[in-house]
């Protein structure tokens, strides 16, 4: 079941930023894989918190501190339900996906990765799921292995069995590629990784807003995502980890909140999740992230998926026949992301002319340089959709793209 145009209109009404003109044209915002816009409920939640509640959490005996703590912990419970974790203690708030991945690399990684070990990534990882592991590998004398990517922008599945071996201690891959939109078969990989005794981290930054996530069903060891790509505030993120792993992990950042008691002789650390949340967190942001979860859950996943795949199909059909245009990532399993290039035209030129026509897309390497080296191009133009994207916007995008190409040819 898809969402009716009338429903989309009422959803759009909740997003103030969408109703403006850019360069004299109605804004067509197709950069949702970079960050989604925020509904009023999220914006008002931030505002409301600072106007009525602002206090530091988990300390202080006063009324506001108690209220702020309850609201903050409410979001933890909402996130637990959202990804179906066993318990809310397995939800750690971070500043975003990058922060979550670095946390795992610097704690679990430094404790468990040794010289000669292997860390398996894929060729379509975001730099933030490459660099933290490279830093760790360099420090420990471990090596990075890479799952190759096919012309269609999918994992070379047949390579996986030979890449996984006794030396593999960790697998870290995205569920959905930010550059291509490919939905990767992570469930299979999780099973295979566990079969050889490796742990597996899933970068879910590009998936959590587009289809249901169930960490128990997936059985992944870690899962990371950002608030701002799921209609929530920037500067918020989540690290999910299995309790037994989080408990065994040493703390990363030292400070307030993460301790049980401190003396100059000996500090004992707090329980999870607080052990990993040193210092005052982004309280307002986390509370508003709860409102973002509510916004998503007002709809059904089947509605969201049907709408976004309809947009993808519509846009793909219209642009794939354009002269010299090549779509990067042609998997049958994709979220609403179209990455493309036009022969003889630099992505930057297309992006500039689309912007002049009110269409916001991303151009460049999208922080996945190894992937573009593999395709032999410097990058792409990427249009990415969200639940508030309309078919009319796809029409405007296609028309603007046609005009841009004709000007540049």
């Amino acid at each position, binding site marked *: 079941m898809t969402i009716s145009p009338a429903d989309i209109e009422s959803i759009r009404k909740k997003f103030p930023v969408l109703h403006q003109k850019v*360069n004299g044209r109605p804004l067509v915002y197709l950069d949702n894989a970079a960050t989604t816009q925020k509904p009023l409920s999220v914006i008002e939640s931030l505002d409301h918190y600072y106007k009525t509640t602002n206090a530091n959490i988990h300390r202080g005996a006063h009324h506001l501190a108690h209220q702020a703590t309850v609201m903050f912990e409410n979001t933890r419970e909402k996130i637990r339900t959202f990804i179906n974790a066993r318990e809310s203690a397995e939800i750690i708030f971070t500043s975003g996906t990058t922060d979550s991945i670095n946390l795992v690399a610097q704690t679990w990684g430094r404790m468990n990765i040794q010289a000669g070990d292997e860390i398996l990534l894929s060729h379509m990882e975001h730099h933030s799921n490459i660099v933290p592991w490279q830093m760790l590998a360099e420090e420990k004398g471990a090596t990075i292995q890479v799952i190759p990517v096919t012309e269609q922008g999918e994992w070379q599945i047949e390579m996986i069995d030979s890449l996984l071996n006794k030396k593999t201690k960790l697998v870290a891959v995205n569920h959905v590629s930010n550059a291509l939109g490919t939905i990767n078969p992570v469930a299979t990989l999780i099973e295979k990784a566990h079969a050889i005794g490796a742990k597996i981290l899933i970068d879910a930054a590009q998936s959590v807003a587009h289809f249901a996530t169930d960490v128990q069903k997936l059985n992944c060891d870690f899962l990371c995502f950002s608030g701002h790509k799921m209609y929530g505030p920037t500067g918020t993120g989540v690290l999910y980890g299995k309790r037994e792993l989080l408990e065994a992990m040493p703390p990363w950042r030292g400070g307030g909140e993460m301790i049980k008691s401190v003396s100059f002789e000996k500090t004992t650390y707090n329980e999870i999740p607080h052990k990993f949340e040193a210092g005052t967190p982004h309280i307002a942001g986390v509370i508003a992230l709860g409102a973002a979860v509510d916004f998503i859950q007002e709809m059904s996943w089947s509605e969201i998926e049907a709408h976004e795949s309809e947009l993808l199909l519509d846009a793909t059909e219209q642009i794939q026949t354009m002269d010299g245009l090549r779509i990067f990532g042609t998997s049958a399993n994709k979220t609403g992301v179209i990455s493309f290039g036009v022969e003889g035209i*630099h992505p*930057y*030129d297309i992006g*500039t*002319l689309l912007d*002049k026509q009110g269409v916001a897309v991303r151009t*460049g390497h999208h922080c996945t340089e190894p992937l573009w080296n593999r395709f032999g191009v*410097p990058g792409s133009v990427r249009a990415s959709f969200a639940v508030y994207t309309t078919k009319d916007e796809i029409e405007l995008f296609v028309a603007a793209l046609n005009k841009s190409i004709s*000007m540049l040819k």
Partner: protein
Amino acid sequence: MSIEERQQEIVEEFSVFGDWMEKYEYIIDLGKELPLIDEQYKTEDNLIKGCQSRVWLHADQAADGRIQFTADSDAIITKGLVALVIRALNDQTPEAIASADLHFVNDIGLSEHLSPTRSNGLASMIKQMKLYGVAYSVKDK
């Protein structure tokens, strides 16, 4: 013609354009016309890396001490903008280049291309051209 006079000339040319399309069509044409940099100068050393589009810049000093720039970019709009900047600064003395105030980019409404977030290499190229101006004026003394 001084750098200032050339800038005024460019601003006047752009004043006749009615909308963004005419303006960009002109820039794209300039990009297509810009004489390519001699292949031997398209080196890693002469590459000014923007995050997205790349610019190569080469400077030569003529016998009269004035500087000749040649450049190229892999993005045509960047190349057109590069052509305009070269037109303003080419064949000028190192001192004039080093102290030039390139206000024309703002005047013709293209300042967005100089913002660091655009990452098209244009801002870095202008900085590099001025450095050449400084370097050659020191060398001349």
